[in-house]
């Protein structure tokens, strides 16, 4: 044991009232030692950098509590171990996430150009081509889904908060909304497809089917957030309005809704950002195509997520005589970057809206 001389040093302290503690620089020392040992072993044994980093982390997680156990006792050692593990979990989760974002940025930025945004894949073999058709498809399908789901979701929330308090329909609806949040997206897609097949026959693929599926996924999010916001509106406001003789529906439209407006819009934007990246339902209902199709009700419609998937699964081959990754991969990364960009912009917009509308009541006070 290398810690014996330290033990000796701390004996004088243990005699007093103060419990012995590791010095403040203990973590730095152990960290440096772990890095040194792992680095040495990595060089000698020829391991990869990643393996060395993992080893260093393990050495630290073992070394710190061991030293602490010898000096401070079992309870403090358990505490130190927990601290190490929690920090370890944080670092370990960050690694794949940073890796993912970095890859998307690195590969995506190289693929994006003006023509990438402005061209479809019609007649493209090999290099070139773009995402215009998919971008338009995504915007149209999501817009239609929003148009379907917002009125339904909003009115349901109004019913739950303003009209149906405690009624059986309200309880059932709340339960069903809970159930709906758990519907797998592909099941929503199958539902939309089954519905269309019943109406139009088996070989149907239209963009609007995708909107139905996305709306099904959006509705619970919209209901939940709108309900929460409506409940936050103080009932004093409603009562004041009733006292002035304003009918209930005008109270809701003119008093309750404007008060909750910011929160409701934020919820809707977040709901859109959640469904805009859905792939599976669009893959099976809206289909895939290489050309621009602006008609939601006729023919297959490409969307960004499906575009990424189809570029990934059939990437083509690099131009004759050249070596390298298939051209589809670069387009997939580029489209992924655009899609993530849209999602992040929506999230940022939601946050800004929240900021604009949230502090108002505080400021007035």
């Amino acid at each position, binding site marked *: 044991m290398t810690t014996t001389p330290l033990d000796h040093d701390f004996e004088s302290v243990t005699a007093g009232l103060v419990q012995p503690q590791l010095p403040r620089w203990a973590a730095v020392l152990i960290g440096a030692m772990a890095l040194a040992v792992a680095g040495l072993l990595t060089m000698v044994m020829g391991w990869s950098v990643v393996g060395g980093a993992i080893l260093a982390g393990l050495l630290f997680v073992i070394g710190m509590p061991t030293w602490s156990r010898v000096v401070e006792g079992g309870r403090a050692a358990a505490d130190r171990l927990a601290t190490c593990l929690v920090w370890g979990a944080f670092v*370990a989760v960050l690694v794949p996430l940073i890796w993912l974002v970095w890859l998307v940025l690195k590969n995506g930025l190289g693929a994006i150009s003006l023509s990438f945004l402005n061209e479809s894949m019609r007649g493209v073999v090999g290099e070139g081509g773009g995402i215009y058709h998919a971008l338009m498809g995504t915007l149209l399908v999501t817009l239609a889904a929003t148009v379907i789901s917002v009125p339904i979701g909003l009115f349901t929330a109004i019913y739950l908060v303003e009209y149906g308090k405690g009624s059986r329909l309200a309880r059932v609806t709340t339960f069903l909304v809970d159930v709906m949040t758990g519907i797998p997206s592909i099941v929503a897609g199958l539902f939309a497809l089954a519905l269309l097949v*019943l109406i139009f026959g088996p070989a149907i693929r239209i963009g609007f089917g995708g909107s139905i599926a996305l709306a099904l996924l959006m509705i619970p999010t919209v209901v939940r957030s709108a309900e929460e916001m409506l409940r936050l509106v103080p009932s004093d406001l409603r009562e004041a309005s009733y006292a002035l003789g304003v009918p209930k529906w005008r109270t809701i439209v003119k008093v309750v809704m404007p008060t909750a407006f910011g929160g409701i819009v934020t919820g809707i934007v977040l709901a859109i950002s959640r469904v805009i990246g859905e792939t599976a339902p669009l893959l099976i209902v809206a289909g895939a195509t290489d050309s621009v199709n602006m008609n939601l009700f006729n023919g297959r419609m490409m969307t960004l*997520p499906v575009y990424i*998937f189809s570029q990934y699964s059939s990437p083509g081959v690099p131009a004759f005589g050249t070596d390298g990754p298939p051209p589809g991969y670069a387009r997939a990364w580029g489209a992924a970057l655009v*899609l993530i960009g849209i999602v992040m912009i929506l999230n940022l917009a939601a946050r800004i809206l929240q900021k604009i509308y949230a502090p108002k009541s505080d400021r007035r006070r």
Partner: protein
Amino acid sequence: MLSSTEATGKPVVRLGDRLFSGTARLAAMLIMVALAGVAVFLVVEGLPGLSAPADIYRPADDFWSYVGPLVWGTVLAAVVALVIAIPFSVGLALFISHYAPPRIAGPIAYVIDLLAAIPSVVYGLWGGLALAHWMTPSINWLYDNLGFIPFFAGPPSVTGRTMLTAGIVLSIMVIPITTAISREVFAQTPRLHEEAAMALGATRWETIRLAVFPYAKSGVVSGVMLGLGRALGETMAVAMVLSATPVVTLNLISNSNPATIASNIAANYKEATPDRQSLLIATGLVLFIVTFVVNFIARLIVARSERNVTR
């Protein structure tokens, strides 16, 4: 009701009021109808898939032997994902709520929330193009050193497109969801409980074990169940990582991996004949039932432990 009060002439019921409340009620009912519609349409379109001619089910020969490996794959992938995700998300949630310096805890929480918004197809792209390749040496290492465990029985895949890789990708998609909910309940622990534990001389870890965990148990369970729901229904990440064969196996690192229900639907949809299509819809119905049951159990657990806490 409305007309009787109108007849006595006391409160005036306006047309606008009636229209508005009617619309609101209609919307609530529409949700019920929509959900019933999901079940009904899936049953109507899927029933022919239960008893089709045997060659539809190739390579199996009846519905249950077709869907069996898929259910197995779905559960296996979800379990692998949860086993990886639970410790990390609880750790990460604790980090945000109790360990991180307050100034960086907020931004970290926001970033983790943002990660939940990254589309699954992007995770699939990353899993298929980057992680799978990188996993190959680890898979070989697992086979060489832990090959006696049935999970790592091999022979190891050369492409890295294995159940283990799919599970890791799924776990990274589950972590933000589970973390978000766990962190919220950890942060809601009554301050007094924690201070009482500290005042008795508990270390930070003991405080967490004595005050935070008992309080947050049901919340963490519901977070895990939500994550499980996502892992069960997740399509693209699995479809993009795995190349599937219908086998039932515990082996996580070999070339032959069972597909999940969802990834099987996505992979086979394009070239499906109407018969095959109804078969796929029938498997979708199975998935719907499985996730419904999981969610239902989750809600029961949460409701029961909430009752215990209030008692």
